[in-house]
């Protein structure tokens, strides 16, 4: 196994606020990693830095050994780092099928620029239908995204990220806005669909049960810093993590975690 994504000394300040302080992280290929932390811990900032939406104040980000610091999201996406969004970012006036076709079409047009485009060959129209089936979205194929229920939009958003052939997929709170009894089914579905392509996954999550069940490794953020990094069970039972991260998450998640 080799590092697919490496961040060294990653720092981002907004005026007096430090959103990321000297973050050093290395993600191995073909793993599922959880990213936890309270509100304002810098999780989304980290995703925004890695995907090029924000330019770091200091530090470097390497992807497969290549320095990608300061590249725009467009180029980083083409190299194989894709993301989904906490609030689904879909094309409202297009149908679910057309939403996927946008991404699949972009890959076909820029075949040479997409590093991961060897993954899953086939005509985009065909692949779009396959992906809808894989994400259990076939029933919504021809509905405009604007009228879809929130949970379905969430799935579509993740499917769209997968459509552009990532080698690593960053999921920003995939289960937020999804009811508690649907969370496990959703994660089974999402990770099953993603891992079928051997895509590395890093996901931000507040629900510790989800983190424990689906990750092999966890990164804990607090106040812009990495306070723990290691095997999921070890990190989740770390006293500092329990005090600073688990204790501060949504009461429901924390309580259930204490019971378990």
């Amino acid at each position, binding site marked *: 196994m080799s590092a697919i994504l490496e961040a060294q000394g990653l720092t981002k300040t907004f005026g007096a606020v430090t959103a990321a302080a000297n973050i050093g992280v290395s993600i191995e290929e073909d793993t599922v990693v959880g990213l936890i932390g309270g509100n304002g811990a810098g999780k989304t900032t980290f995703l925004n830095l890695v995907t090029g939406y924000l330019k770091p104040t200091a530090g470097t980000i390497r992807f497969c050994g290549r320095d990608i610091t300061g590249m725009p999201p467009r180029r980083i996406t083409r190299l194989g780092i894709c993301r989904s969004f906490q609030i689904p*970012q879909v094309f*409202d006036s297009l149908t679910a099928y057309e939403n996927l076709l946008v991404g699949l*079409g972009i890959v076909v*047009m*820029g075949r040479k620029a997409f590093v991961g485009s060897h993954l899953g060959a086939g005509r985009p129209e065909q692949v779009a239908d396959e992906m809808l089936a894989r994400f259990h979205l076939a029933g919504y194929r021809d509905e405009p995204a604007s009228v879809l229920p929130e949970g379905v939009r969430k799935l579509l958003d993740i499917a769209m990220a997968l459509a552009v052939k990532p080698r690593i997929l960053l999921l920003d709170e995939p289960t937020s806005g999804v009811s508690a009894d649907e969370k496990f089914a959703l994660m089974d579905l999402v990770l099953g669909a993603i891992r079928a392509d051997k895509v590395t996954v890093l996901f931000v999550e507040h629900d510790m049960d989800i983190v424990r069940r689906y990750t092999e490794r966890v990164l804990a953020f607090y106040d812009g810093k990495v306070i723990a990094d290691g095997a999921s069970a070890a990190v989740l039972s770390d006293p500092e993590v329990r005090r600073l991260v688990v204790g501060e998450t949504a009461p429901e998640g924390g309580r259930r975690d204490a019971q378990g």
Partner: protein
Amino acid sequence: MSSFRRNTLGLGAALAALAVAAPLVPRWALFLVVISLAKGLVALGLLLLMRTGLVSFGQGLYFATGAYAAGVAANTFHLGDGVILVLAGGLAAAAVAAVLGLLLARYRAIFFAMLSLAFSMILYGLLVKTSALGSTDGFNVAPKTVFGLSLSAATGPGRYGVYALAALCAFGTAVAVDRYLRSYLGRLAPAVRDNELRVEYMGASVRNVVHLNLIIAGALAGVGGAVTALAVGHVDPEMAYWTTSGEFVFVAILSGTASVAAPFAGALLLELLRSFAYEHAPNTWQLVMGSAMLAVILFLPDGLWSVFRRRRRAAA
């Protein structure tokens, strides 16, 4: 049958209808159709921009560029054939759009609309002050042939030369644009309108998409301007004036974005309406036009073409 084939056949039928109608209708009606097709070309470009989420109040800029380019090509470079003049008009307008697009593609919404308007008024100002191009009077354009057929003969197929050219331009561009809308590239325009951030996060350049649509819309307006110059036999700075641009937006809204044929139908309806309003209410024709626009916005917010769609849905 794919919907692209069906649309192409429909457009082909419309072209055939125009050909059959040519010897049957009076000359003023032929002229009216040519002008409608020319304006429809400009509105077709606006349809592309509206799909990208942009409304340009300055398409007169490309319309005038195409017309003047055709005029200069005919008069200064003595290029006689209408086909070449129309090509020259389209290319010149596309080139102007490519340059201005470097700036315009950065703006959205009202800023885009006002900036495009400003550019068109700059061209208007330049044309008015350029005596070599006839200042406010403009100059005459007299193409000698179309498809190699003489336009000066009172009889023979040459009489229909400009009409045929306009019809073929409209048909060719409508089929090409229909094809473009179904391409992966064409599908990016509504995606840009809906969510620019996501388009960038899917690996495509929003600015390039906008720029490309600006160039195509400019080229279409340029072809429309060149056809108008050939049909009227004259160009003047009014073609770049903001009221001309406003009329194109009028046609685009009247037509809606549901079909590539809609802008041509909308433009024809506008010209017919204006002709009759002008004849029967010479002093209040603007009032008639304004009321028509109001009615469309109130009762058919998706444009005239939505009538067909509603009926199809009702039947289904």
